């Protein structure tokens, strides 16, 4: 129980840290809204030409866009999660401080990232989503159960997203400068999560592959639950399996890193 309180405090701290920067949040909200507008008109033109592309009707496609904007910063698909800081701490050697603490590195950063994600969802995600729902025809579920199922999928998406980004950050133990890896992960995440286009749209093998990759847990999976396109339990199983695999891999890499660690600097 004591440990639970620690990680709850870390999560609360993660939430409050991001809440400190109100201007940055406002700027982010504005960016997400503009970005959403650009995408929504592109999608509308596309769905005008090809109705029911990827199994979505127009309203569903529009909903998908605004959901993407709500989850972009929440899941740090375009970067901006705790991994930047973690990587910087590894590079400068400040990680030494995290390592001698009587707490678990992965759980610590997971908690901090969940706190951050929750703030981003409430502070940065809700506004563009609300804006989209007000000014565009959207397809939202009427029943509470679907909404609850959707939130469950978002929570699992947060775990998967962190799992990927934690591994990316730990690469800094070996590479010192993880910028290249994080940019690759960022690009892969943008495309493979369905942030550019829903993954349902991709035909054939490419579609099969991207839908099986962990990134599809981030946006595609919660979106399909919200839009009633996927069975929640099946989605949970898929996301849960990836979350477990990635977090377990993170744990392995973490212990390998701790064993061979050369903490930078005096």
């Amino acid at each position, binding site marked *: 129980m*004591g440990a639970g*309180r*620690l990680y709850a*405090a*870390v999560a609360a*701290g993660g939430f*409050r*840290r991001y809440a*400190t*920067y109100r201007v940055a949040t406002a700027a982010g909200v504005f960016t997400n809204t503009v970005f959403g507008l650009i995408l929504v008109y592109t999608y509308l033109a596309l769905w005008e030409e090809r109705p029911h592309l990827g199994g979505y009707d127009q309203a569903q496609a529009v909903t998908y866009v605004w959901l993407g904007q709500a989850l972009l910063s929440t899941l740090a698909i375009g970067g901006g999660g705790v991994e930047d800081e973690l990587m910087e701490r590894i590079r400068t*050697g*400040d990680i*030494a*401080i995290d*390592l*001698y*603490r*009587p*707490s678990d590195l992965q759980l610590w950063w997971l908690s901090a990232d969940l706190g951050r994600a929750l703030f981003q969802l409430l502070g940065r995600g809700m506004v563009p989503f609300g804006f989209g729902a007000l000014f565009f025809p959207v397809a939202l579920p009427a029943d509470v159960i679907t909404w609850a199922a959707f939130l469950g999928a978002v929570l699992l998406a947060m775990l998967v997203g962190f799992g990927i980004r934690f591994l990316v950050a730990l690469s800094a133990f070996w590479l010192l400068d993880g910028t290249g890896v994080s940019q690759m992960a960022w690009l892969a995440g943008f495309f493979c999560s369905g942030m550019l286009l829903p993954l349902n749209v991709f035909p054939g093998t490419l579609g099969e592959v991207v839908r099986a990759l962990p990134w599809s847990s981030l946006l595609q999976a919660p979106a399909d639950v919200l839009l009633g396109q996927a069975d929640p339990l099946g989605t949970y199983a898929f996301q849960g399996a990836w979350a477990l695999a990635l977090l377990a891999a993170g744990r392995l890499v973490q212990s390998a890193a701790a*064993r061979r*660690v*050369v*903490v930078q*600097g*005096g």
Partner: protein
Amino acid sequence: MTDGDFVEPDRFIELDGVEKVFDVRRKTGFLRRERRQVRAVDSISFTVARGEMVGYIGPNGAGKSTTIKMLTGILTPSGGRLRVAGIDPSRERRRLAQRIGVVFGQRTTLWWDLPLIDSYRLVHRMYRVPDRRYRENLDRCVELLELADLLDVPVRQLSLGQRMRGDIAAALLHDPEVLYLDEPTIGLDVVSKAKVREFLRSLNADRGTTVLLTTHDLQDIEQLCSRVMVIDHGRLVYDGALAGLHEAGEGERTLVVDLEREVPPIEVPGARVTKVEGPRQWLAFPASASAAPLVARIAASYPLADLAVREPDIEAVIARMYAGEAEGAVS
């Protein structure tokens, strides 16, 4: 507590032939790499008693921080035996963490974006400090380190001296038995240094906290530590009282002689003239020798007006010690 935890109080920290060897790969050409081993710590042995306050000094790259990192368990020694409070640090890092506090002068354990008090609440949970003890310790630190007005200030807005005091408090809220301080006064102004030193002195006196202090500021050592260890090139080159450093470093005292008139440089056995300025001459003689016979001899053969004996400058002694070590390493 297991039986293995029994610790003799005079061997609270114990190092026996501890080594740390790093593999360094160096590019020597296109795709060619050379592997080289660097001995950051080369067979160091010492013990620190419970309640001692020990200075650990040495030039940059001597192995001080590597030693501290091994003592906290974040680096595993390549060889030798190391125990802190009976615990092998690298094997039981978490358990040891409950009993040690660490302050790195150049890093912070505090949460940058949040008020100071938030970091303390986190420490409270992290070390599972009982509520009452947490409050007592916090009150004490706040009072002695003058933190009352800073608790609600985000850490990023604190000055270096304020942040340092904040970091020291954070390291002490769980009542550690040992405190490692890695350059705690680096970059601080005179007033802040004095505050930090005063606090450490009272911590050691009132609570009996064992303190291991690395620093480049010899005043820290002079004012706080009765014992000093000097490390250079990964080896312990001195371990003893601060006063004894003079002899170990082949320190010299200086006899400043004022004569009634200008004379050629004084010639006297056991001393040599280092400087002449009009009727005043400076003579160097070994710190271990007595000044009395020297004075008598000079007074007998020269028109002596006045004289003064200057103790060796501790910084000069240590600088000479490092230089001597470097020469020794080359030859």
